[in-house]
């Protein structure tokens, strides 16, 4: 066999771009990993405390105050970004976990139980989703007060509605498969069907969704903080840092740009990982079809 015949469309092995996705995912994971380390060891790394006033000067240039300059109160931007990583990433992680727990549980329940339960759940969640999410959050937080718990639960609830939609649709497709019918015919309860039959088959798309929702959570907290209803001073979080220092733009300061850039890097790196995961699970699926 000397004649090698191979057309582009048959190239199996490494699908085009596969390597690229992997490299990108590594870059994303490194950036994210770095931020996680920064968040964990913030007190050790940060040159100053997050509320420490270093100068009378507003928007001091780098060198005068800290490595990245000072904010509107003369605090060190670098230290505040480092402490902010804690707040922003930590909150986003908690919100994502709660949002997914609730969203998946309700979504699967609606799909598996069907009937009245599905109708009631779906319509109520439609009703919640009909409100613009930022407005809904503003109303809830304004009426319940700006505590950390309220902030977390509000954003988690809003995230959960989105997760509900996705997981219900996913579970609907899986619930009609014969192996779920077999489980029903065996007399299994709802809990087993949701947890053992459906969930393992939905992890791929759900994991991708985790990445996307995590990013949204960061942006959501930032947006609320920007409006003054999120994280309260003197705690630093990236969103509120952008808001506080917005004035600095007029003076040519980079103070609002740096936390914004931090948000961008996290969003970006999470998305790189998600893209790789989606690409990978799509390839797994086509491999399975091939079988």
């Amino acid at each position, binding site marked *: *066999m*000397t*004649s*090698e*015949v*191979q*057309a*582009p*469309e*048959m*190239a*199996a*092995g490494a699908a085009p771009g596969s390597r690229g996705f992997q490299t990108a995912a590594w870059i994303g994971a490194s950036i994210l990993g770095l931020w996680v380390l920064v968040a964990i060891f913030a007190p050790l790394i940060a040159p100053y405390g997050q509320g420490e006033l270093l100068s009378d000067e507003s928007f001091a240039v780098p060198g005068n105050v800290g490595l990245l300059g000072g904010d509107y109160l003369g605090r060190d931007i670098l230290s505040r970004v480092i402490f902010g990583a804690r707040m922003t990433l930590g909150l986003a992680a908690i919100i994502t976990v709660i949002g997914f727990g609730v969203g998946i549980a309700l979504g699967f329940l609606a799909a598996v139980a069907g*009937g009245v339960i599905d109708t009631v759940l779906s319509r109520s969640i439609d009703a919640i989703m009909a409100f613009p999410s930022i407005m809904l959050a503003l109303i809830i937080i304004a009426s319940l007060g700006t505590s950390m718990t309220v902030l977390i639960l509000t954003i988690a609830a809003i995230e959960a509605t989105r997760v509900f939609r996705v997981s219900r649709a996913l579970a609907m497709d899986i619930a009609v*498969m*014969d*192996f779920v*019918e*077999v489980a*029903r*015919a*065996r*007399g*299994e309860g709802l809990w087993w069907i949701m947890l*053992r*039959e459906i969930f*393992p*088959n939905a992890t791929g798309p759900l994991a991708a969704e985790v990445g996307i929702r995590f990013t949204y959570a960061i942006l959501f907290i930032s947006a609320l903080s920007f409006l003054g209803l999120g994280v309260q001073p003197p705690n630093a979080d990236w969103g509120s840092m952008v808001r506080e220092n917005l004035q600095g733009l007029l003076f040519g300061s980079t103070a609002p740009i740096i936390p914004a850039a931090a948000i961008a890097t996290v969003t970006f790196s999470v998305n790189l990982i998600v893209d790789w995961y989606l690409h990978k699970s799509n390839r*797994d699926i*086509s*491999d*399975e079809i*091939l*079988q």
Partner: protein
Amino acid sequence: MTALLEIDNLWVEGKPPGSDFRPIVKGVSLSVNRGEVLALIGESGSGKSTICLAALAYARPGCRFAGGKVLLEGQDILALDSEDRRPIRGAKVAYVAQSAAAAFNPALTIGSQVTEIALVHEIMSATEADRRAVDTYRRLDLPTPELLGGLYPHQVSGGQLQRLMAAMAVSCDPMLLLLDEPTTALDVTTQIEVLTAFKAIIKQQQSAAIYVTHDLSVVAQIADRIIVLNDGMIMEEGTTKQIVEQPTHDYTKTLMKAVRPPPRTTVKTGAIRDDPSADTTPVLEARGITAGYGRVKKKIVLWDVDLKVSSHQVVGVIGESGCGKSTLARVISGLLPQVSGEIVHKGTVLPPAVAARRKAQIQSIQIVFQMADVALNPRQRVRDIIGRPLEFYMNMGASARRERVGELLELVELPRDFAARFPKELSGGEKQRVNLARALAAEPDVILCDEVVSSLDTVVGAAIIDLLKDLQQKLGVAYVFISHDLSTVASFADTIVVLYAGRVVERGPTMDVLSPPYHPYTRLLLSSVPEIRPGWLEDVMKTREAISGISREVELTDVGCPFFARCPLAIEGTCDTQAPPHREPAAGHLVACHRELDDLTGDIIQH
């Protein structure tokens, strides 16, 4: 004159996930002349579809051509780049896939899909293509050819859709048609309908064809020449007559053996058949089951169905798709609560819904589904799949469970170490064995087998049937065996229930059902079972049953006999208005028909 298609020493390699490329097709050479129908037969995995697709210079994802030539009219199409291949595909060489339901886009009209090839290749204008399409529908004997193009795929029957695939394929007058198992998974009656259409179109087109199948009796009807494949290599080659009548290679003989003989030649021996009147309490009984789908206003699909299963017995339920066979299984298992009637297990009436039944009641009636692939959770290992009923019904501990799973695997003739595998690491037949082992794990009295061999190769299916018989001997389990394949049921069942459009039209001991007097529907089913005999297709199309009964869909009716529209013996004014009386030609044998028994007695035309 050279051959139309010549494949010379073709090697194709495939890459299973996680391992290296390995050859699937190993140095196959063949040729197809103009106007000739070549059949490629073999089990799944023998490389027949891969060879077929090579005629389009197409390798499935994960496969690649490793060597050889595919010459179409003397031109090596493997050497062309993808741009130069395009004019060939669809226009010169056309492909008909196995499942029409999956090949049609449900969101587009039939017409737009049938004419698509011609328009994409800019061979003709839209109006011309439409005109030609209507012409093809007419030649294929499809109903209302002028209106058909405007319909959507779900608005026509499965058999019609399959014929429309042929219409699509011939829309550009291709030189070569590739038919990839186009009749597998169809009802016997639909299979005849589709085969007849394909045969006609090949003749009219004067085109050559490659017909891929695992079913020898189908091949005998349509092919001029047969190539038998196994494991990517040619085992035997010859004319249809030669192969069918004097197979020389052992593998061909195995394939021949797996073809189930027509039912009337295999009547069970008296030893197995019990006297139905001497029955003890049946282990399972369905009384007057009426059931349907829909939450608010039910669409009824089963009317007043009775079924009785004695212990150690096999009850066959037959009928075409849409007759309510699977619905009956779902009702018995409690997945679909009935509207009226009752399910009785060993003298106790079971609650309709599975959720309301007690564990022991559920345990004693197990169900095995048709599609072996989707009945196994792809994320669970075989040991968890089979182990779950042990844990669920019997509270078996982990170590006892491991031992029992091993035993069950051995019982279904699989190696013990399969326990660690995932379903995707199993073949179709192995998956069905695991399904069976899961049902057996519950140690049930009755197993509901819903078309368990329909999606399998003939050889694999025959092995599963043998296993089922074996298990019945060993364990004394009873089966409700649901199938559209009369020959399978006949070789296996003690009693047969013939369902048509949700009603029992005939019921009785196998021997009585398979001998006259027949219900006209039973007769249609009987005459539709394919035989390995060239010319059988033409003969069967001449019978009165076929003339009135083939190419018709199962329609549900509220009044009269549901078979009225397809029945050659229908009495206008009676059959369509009144429910047929139940006649009893022998004890335990029931025929629901307005005709006198004498009218139903004539034998099926034999040769």
